[in-house]
Every structure is written in C-alpha cells, then in structure tokens.
C-alpha cells in the first residue's frame, strides 16, 4: 500500500510571486491537489479606468518586473490597434530587439538562477558561487548583457521609459548598437557552455499530451510581437478574436484566473512556442534543440527549460541580425510618437512574452480616456495545465519519500517559470 502523503508547500520559492502547493493522498488516491495562488490582487483593470491612452503602457508595465517590456509591447500593440496605427519599420525592429533582450534576460534568470540549483542539488544560486564560480560568473555576464539591450533601447530594463505608442522618445546611437552586437556575438561561447552543462544533467521523465497555444507569424518569423494565435489542436485566429476561444473562470483557491480553450487546459510559453513554430527557428537554435533532445511536439513540461535555452540561441542570432539591419538603415529620431490621432473604440494587442502569450484590451473614449480594460496573463493561462500535470505526475512518484515528492512538484511548478504577481487580476470584463 503506498504511503499517505500530506504536503503543504507554502510560498513556493524561486518563482516570481506567491503560490502554494497542497497535496493529500490516501491509500494511493489523490484526495486533494491544488496549486493555490495567494498573491494579493492589485486590480489593474479597474485602476486603468479614467487614465489617459498614453499612460496605459506606463501603468501596465508595472504589472510585472520581469515581463515589463512584454507588457509594454502588448499594451502599445493594443492602443495602436485601437487607433488604427501601423508603426514604422524602425519602431518595430527596435521594439523586437528590446523584446529579445527581455526573452534573454528572463530565460537566463530562470534557467541559471532559479532552476540550476535544483539540477545541481542546492537551495539557491548563492552556494553555487563557491561550488561553480564559473557558471555564476557566466550567469551574471549574460544576464547583464540582456539587461543592457533593453537599457540601450528603452532606458532601463525594468519599466522601460522610451517605448511609446507609434514610436520611441529616444533612439540608440550606432555605436551603442555595435557594442551590443559584439557582446551578443561573444555570448555564443557562453551559450555553448550552458548547453554543454545541460547535456550532463537529467530532467524528470514525464510526459502528458496537451494543447499548445502561441503566436504564429504565418510560418515565417518565430513570432513574439505580431502574427495570429495558433493552437496545436489545429486552429489559428486573429489576435482580436481572443474572447471567442478563451474561456476564463475564477477558482476560490486562486487570486489568478484560470483559462481553457479547446480542452480543459492548455499550455503557453517557450515549449508551446517551440512546438508551434519550430520551422521558424534559426538553424543554430534547431541544432541546439537536437543536441538537447528536444523535438516537436514535445509534451514534457520540464523540457520548457530546454525550450528556453533554445530560444536564447534563437534570440541571440535574431538580435545580431536585427542590429545589422538597423545599422544598415541608419537609426534616426522619428516623430511618430508625437503625431498620434486618438480615436474612440477598442483595441486588442498581444505579445508572446517569456512565459507565454499575453493579451491587453482597452476601450478608449473620444478624449483618449480609458473606460475599460481586460488583461490576460500567461501564467493564468497555465494554471489549469499545471494542476493537470500534477494530477498525472503524482501517481508516478508516489513511492518516493514525501520531501522528494514535494521537491518534484515544486520543480514542476518552477519549470513553467510562473509569474504569479503578473497573473493576479481580472475577470472577463464586458464593455458597454
């Protein structure tokens, strides 16, 4: 007879925000299994009402310190959608380059600071400074580079200041872009080291087939900031139709809302993007995926960490290419952000941020005052899938000691790289 398990893991560590895991089993059966979100709600949708159109990005980027650039991007996309604006090629390239910086920063933070300690059997990155000083120095170096990409383009990486509706209030100098390019090229060696280390470590062997949802750019570009919504269940729809397929509900145990689409749960994030957009990855990223045993469609949520490393390779190469294109074009201060014509209406914007697809929707009146908003955050979309994974995973590990079961479940939660402070928000808001 398997042991009876009673786990209450309060405030899972090494994740962003506050979440608890509760597991009770009796005679080998799960009696209770929950991932509780206990982050205090902040009510951004309500606070936006009465604010001006140009404040939306400044306010919503404060939803999350890690995905700040991503929220900014989704917010600007939504407002531009509302006003019927298509930004200049230079603006889109700079926005994408900063976005790549955030992907790199967030993925490096997650894989090297938050997950690596599990794989190396310690409680945090701090003891690694003594046991693996080279890895820690590498982690600091690549994360600094990623942050500096955002600093050069947006002023700073946490809550960027230069990103505006239809443009940038400041643009980087050619020398700054050249310097970033040199550091990106140099970081290829660090990525090689990361891949070599990961090859020696093993992730839990667990697989559960589910639906994967991400942006897709008609199969051309590995989509992060534009395109349509694609499901691995075979459908694709324009971004503004997100309410048609997304079903949201409130659970009593969670201040973050749950969502489902074609089935009872779906997954968003690096693994979903990888599974849906594999063909658009650069050759270097595909080679690393193969080396690390990741092929589409992969249904092991722990492999999300590997997908993040593959994306780091892609974003590094893509950023080098973007910088070359920007230098060829010659970056100049444009005036688009000063020439925005406000139109009453609603707008929807999306961005596929480090943790998955993110939607912002605003209603704006003729004075440019925001009258309603809806924000759908990646981690909220992953909750139902995390719980479904736990339910499938627990029977496979029930013969382990209780502290190991707890560690495995925490590792599973961490694999999703949950951003809990982001996810606390919203209900389906009806615009009138």
């Amino acid at each position, binding site marked *: 007879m398997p042991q009876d398990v009673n786990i209450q893991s309060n405030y899972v560590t090494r994740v962003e925000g506050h979440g608890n895991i509760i597991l009770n089993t009796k005679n080998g059966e799960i009696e209770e299994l929950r991932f509780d979100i206990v982050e205090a709600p*902040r009510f951004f949708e309500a*606070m936006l009402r009465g604010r001006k159109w140009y404040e939306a990005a400044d306010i919503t980027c404060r939803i999350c310190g890690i995905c700040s650039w991503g929220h900014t991007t989704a917010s600007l996309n939504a407002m531009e959608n509302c006003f019927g604006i298509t930004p200049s090629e230079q603006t889109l390239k700079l926005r994408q380059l900063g976005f790549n910086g955030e992907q790199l920063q967030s993925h490096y933070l997650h894989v090297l600071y938050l997950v690596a300690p599990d794989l190396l059997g310690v409680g945090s990155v701090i003891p690694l400074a003594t046991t693996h000083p080279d890895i820690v120095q590498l982690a600091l170096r690549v994360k600094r580079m990623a942050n500096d990409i955002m600093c050069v383009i947006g002023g700073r990486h946490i809550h960027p*200041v230069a990103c505006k509706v239809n443009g940038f209030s400041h643009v980087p100098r050619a020398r700054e872009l050249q310097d970033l390019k040199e550091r990106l090229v140099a970081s290829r060696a660090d990525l090689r080291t990361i891949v070599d280390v990961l090859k020696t470590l093993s992730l839990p062997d667990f697989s559960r087939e589910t639906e994967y949802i991400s942006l897709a750019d008609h199969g051309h570009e590995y989509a992060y900031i534009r395109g349509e919504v694609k499901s691995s269940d075979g459908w694709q729809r324009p971004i503004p139709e997100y309410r048609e397929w997304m079903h949201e509900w409130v659970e009593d145990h969670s201040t973050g809302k749950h969502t489902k689409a074609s089935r009872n749960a779906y997954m968003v994030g690096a693994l979903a993007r990888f599974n849906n957009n594999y063909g658009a990855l650069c050759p270097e990223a595909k080679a690393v995926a193969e080396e690390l045993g990741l092929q589409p469609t992969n249904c092991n949520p722990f492999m999300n960490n590997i997908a993040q490393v593959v994306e780091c390779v892609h974003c590094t190469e893509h950023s080098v290419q973007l910088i070359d294109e920007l230098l060829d074009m010659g970056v100049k201060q444009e005036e688009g952000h000063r020439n925005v014509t406000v139109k009453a209406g609603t707008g929807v914007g999306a961005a596929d941020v480090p943790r998955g697809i993110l939607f912002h929707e605003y209603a704006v009146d003729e004075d440019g005052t925001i009258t309603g908003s809806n924000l759908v955050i990646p981690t909220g979309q992953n909750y139902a899938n995390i719980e479904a994974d736990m339910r499938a995973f627990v029977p496979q590990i029930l013969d382990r000691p209780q502290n190991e079961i707890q560690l495995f479940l925490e590792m599973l939660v961490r694999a999703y790289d949950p951003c809990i402070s982001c996810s606390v928000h919203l209900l389906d808001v009806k615009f009138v």
Partner: protein
Amino acid sequence: MADTNGKPKVGIFSFACCEGCQLAVLECENQLLDLLGAVEIVNFREAMDKIGDDYRIAFVEGSITTTEHIEELKEIREQADILVALGACAWPGGLNIMKNFQNLTEVRKYVYGDKWEVHDSIPTRPISAVVPVDFYLRGCPIDRDEFVELVRSLLLGKTPNIPTYPMCVDCKLNENECRFHLGEICLGPVTRAGCNAICPTFGTKCEGCRGLVNDPQVNAQRDVLEEHGLTVEDILRESRLFNGWEFGGGEDLGYKGVDVTVIQAGGE
C-alpha cells in the same frame, strides 16, 4: 541573534507589487558577489529556499493591501533592527493607491465579478502607515546604485548619501533640455532626485515615481502646469499616478498629505 562570521543577516520581503525592486537587487550583477560576501541573505523567496528568520536587516517591497499583509509586516518589524522600504509601492504606495480613488466594492466586482468577496482587499497603504520605517529607497523601480550605496552605508554604520533635492538638478547635470521648454509638462520640480533623471534623458517627462521633495512647492507647480494647459483634473490625475497617497489617497486612513484643496482652488 549573533551574526555568523560577523555578517549581518538580511531578509528581503514582498507585498503587493511587481517584484521589480527585488529584480533590481538581482540586477546588481557587478556588485552581487561582493554584496553576498558582506551579508548573509537568509530569506529571499523569489531567489532562494529559506534558510532562517533571524534577519537583522529587512528590505520590504510592495504595498499593504490585505489584512494578512498588516500582520506579516508587523512580524517583520518585530524581528528586524533595521527596516528599509524598497521602491514606490512600499512608499508612498505607488500605482496601487489609484484604487483608493474608486469605490472598493465596485473595484473588486469589476475584476472578480460574482466572486468578488473570495479575495481580501483593503484600501492600499504604504508600509510606513503600518510600521516605522528606518530608510527609504525610492523609485519605480529602485535605482540599483542607490541600493548598493545604502547597503554599504549600513555595513559601515554611516548615513547613506541619498539626495533630497529635486529632480531638476539631475536633469541639469545631464544637460537635458527642459521638458517645459519643449512644450510638454514634467513633475521633476517637485520630485526627489536620485534616478539620474532617466525619463527626461530618454526623451519623456518625469512622472514622479520617487515621491515628493520635502516641502514641495505645490502651489507654484500647479501654476506652471496650468500655464501649460492642464486642468485641475489633469493636474490631480498626473500627481496621483505614483503619489496618490500624498494627494488625497491617504485621507480616509488618517494621513495628511498635500492639501488638495490648494490645487482645486487653482483656476477659479
């Protein structure tokens, strides 16, 4: 509560916020290893498994928005010899105060619908409205150099060198053209410096995230903003983006900030 190896023990805690200030601490890449050599971090949920609760110095980010927060913050204050407010949410409450200008029940229903009562929420307050605070690191997010300066000062037992003058000084030092001269507006004249004027340097106005200077010239600022075409409503909205607590958002909780009637009297 003896410190091991003479290193003071530190805890880093988080209430309602984006956790960007903790992230800014992790962002001190160039100094992080030196800092870790000088202090022992025993509680930092975002970055590590917990080691203990015997910290002497507590850094607290985030606003207080639930009754549970109040109790947790009091426990932290009880334990810590030195308590530092980290970022605009901790003081003066930052964006989270905007909620206080709307009906709380309506706000909760707008976001959680029928289940609005399931999740606790009280009017937002800065941590200083609940416990005494020893030092303030301002901004949204904090400035990482200022964080390093504060930690260094605490270790040396000296007073940290944190500016009290207005943001305009930083702007002049950066040789930025004044936003007012460009036909825009700016909250720099009443906002505390220390951010190296990052927003004007990157082509946009100061939004006041570092809080007001001591004795802010609110009258003069109102007149200047009015001259630049802002209505009373506009001025209050701008002022309340980060400083709602000072501009009427703390009144129901007994906090006397700026006399808002002075602004409302403008233009009449």
